């Protein structure tokens, strides 16, 4: 059911039955390492290209997810998936091996929450019983598409973020009330917000206004207070973007300084790993949610989470033509059933 301006209320409370995560070398060295299911030490993941490595990461994440629950490929109704590469090739080639009905998504770094929202909507509408939502990104394949060759000897600016090499997958299922697990209650679908930022090395600042807009709309639509949530976690605003978001919201009387965090800040030890403004990419939010946050929910350390994935919808072509960065943020409320 749609409530307010942009929010979906899931009355059937779709379950997030399980999750899986696969991460690359830098992420495996990060502080959340123990929460991830699979780690690999070589950026090529025993493949010949970075694109193949990314596909393998997605396949491994899905296989790991299926391994955690008694089911096989044929009982998966749909897979909603996407990545950052042109034509979403990492996902396309991965799903080719999986033999599952497939919806390919592109929402830049907001893709994971976009997949989760669509999967939850399908379950809520009874269009399927088991749906996988996933998203991935790979540092090396993204760098070559969006920036410079890896071995080009340049310096990164302090506001620049590091594309996370990771994939996270979640299995969304029908709520049959058999046992308690985290459920999806609301989702707020974002609008594109563009405040005219053109600096590709400052995506946090470009995306923060989109997160601001979606959070405000979510709170208005659901009539919830910001302190209702144990954790309001953004996807990849990084250090600067998070600071801007908290500041913008504070200016409008909303205090999230105590319960806000950002996946891009959590996944790396920013100082020790020299990550400048933190992590970014679809895989950032996907793996931190699937690895860390889901574990916190399952162990009831936290019970109510608002996950907001932010995406910067530009391309090297649009930047070359002097366009600014259009940004989007989708929010999904995931809560433990009481």
């Amino acid at each position, binding site marked *: 059911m749609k409530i307010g301006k942009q929010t979906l209320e899931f009355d059937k409370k779709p379950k997030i039955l399980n999750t899986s995560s696969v991460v690359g070398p830098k992420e495996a060295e990060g502080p959340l390492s123990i929460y991830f299911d699979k780690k690999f030490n070589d950026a090529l993941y025993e493949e010949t290209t970075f694109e193949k490595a990314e596909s393998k990461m997605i396949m491994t994440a899905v296989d790991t997810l299926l391994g955690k629950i008694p089911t096989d490929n044929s009982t998966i109704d749909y897979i909603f998936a996407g990545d950052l590469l042109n034509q979403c090739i990492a996902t396309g080639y991965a799903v080719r091996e999986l033999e599952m009905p497939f919806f390919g998504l592109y929402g830049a770094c907001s893709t994971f929450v976009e997949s989760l929202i669509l999967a939850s909507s399908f379950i809520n509408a009874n269009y399927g019983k088991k749906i996988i939502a996933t998203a991935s990104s790979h540092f090396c394949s993204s760098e070559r598409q969006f920036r410079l060759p890896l071995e080009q000897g340049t*310096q*990164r600016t302090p506001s620049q973020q590091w594309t996370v090499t990771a994939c996270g997958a979640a299995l969304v299922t029908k709520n049959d009330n058999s046992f308690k697990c985290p459920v999806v209650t609301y989702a707020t679908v974002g609008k594109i917000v563009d405040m005219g930022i053109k600096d590709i090395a400052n995506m946090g600042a470009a995306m923060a206004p989109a997160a601001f807009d979606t959070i405000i709309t979510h709170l208005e639509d659901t009539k919830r207070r910001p302190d209702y949530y144990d954790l309001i976690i953004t996807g990849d605003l990084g250090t600067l973007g998070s600071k801007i978001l908290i500041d913008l919201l504070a200016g409008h009387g909303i205090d999230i300084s105590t319960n806000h965090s950002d996946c891009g800040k959590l996944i790396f030890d920013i100082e020790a790993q020299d990550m400048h403004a933190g992590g970014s990419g679809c895989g950032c939010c996907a793996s931190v949610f699937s690895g860390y946050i889901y574990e916190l929910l399952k162990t009831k350390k936290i019970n109510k989470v608002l996950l907001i994935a932010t995406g910067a919808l530009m391309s090297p072509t649009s930047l070359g033509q002097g366009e600014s960065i259009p940004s989007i943020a989708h929010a999904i409320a995931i809560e433990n059933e009481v």
Partner: protein
Amino acid sequence: MNYTKLNMNEQEYSDYVDAHSKKSPIVKNCTLAFIVGGFICIIGQIFTDIFQHYGLSFKTASTYSTILLVLIAAILTAFKLYAKIGKFAGAGSIVPITGFSNSIVSPAIEYKTEGVVLGIGANMFKIAGPVLVYGICTSTLIGIVYWLIKLI
């Protein structure tokens, strides 16, 4: 609850972001660039002196030392060391001829997965290409000016 929306225009937001952004450490970057850039130049000078010592003319010796610097930078790039130097030195290792070498070898490595012609061939000058185009254009223009002045 009724919250108002973000009341800033693009310019105000851009100023606001600039005020909150961490600035690049310009003094540190410039100092390191000066030291490392200078160091690369000293190495070049040493090469030239050695070549001259063995009887080459200054012109030939400096050409040889340029070639040698380009070769060393290409090898360092292939062994993934030049990017590390670049991270530390910034403009200090981009501006000298070694940086030019790095900017040709790095896309060559990166795009070898797309094949020898459309991968390496088409992308090798992706970064160095503009430098060559405008370098040659500028030297041609200056050559013409020089020639005109001589005519007068």
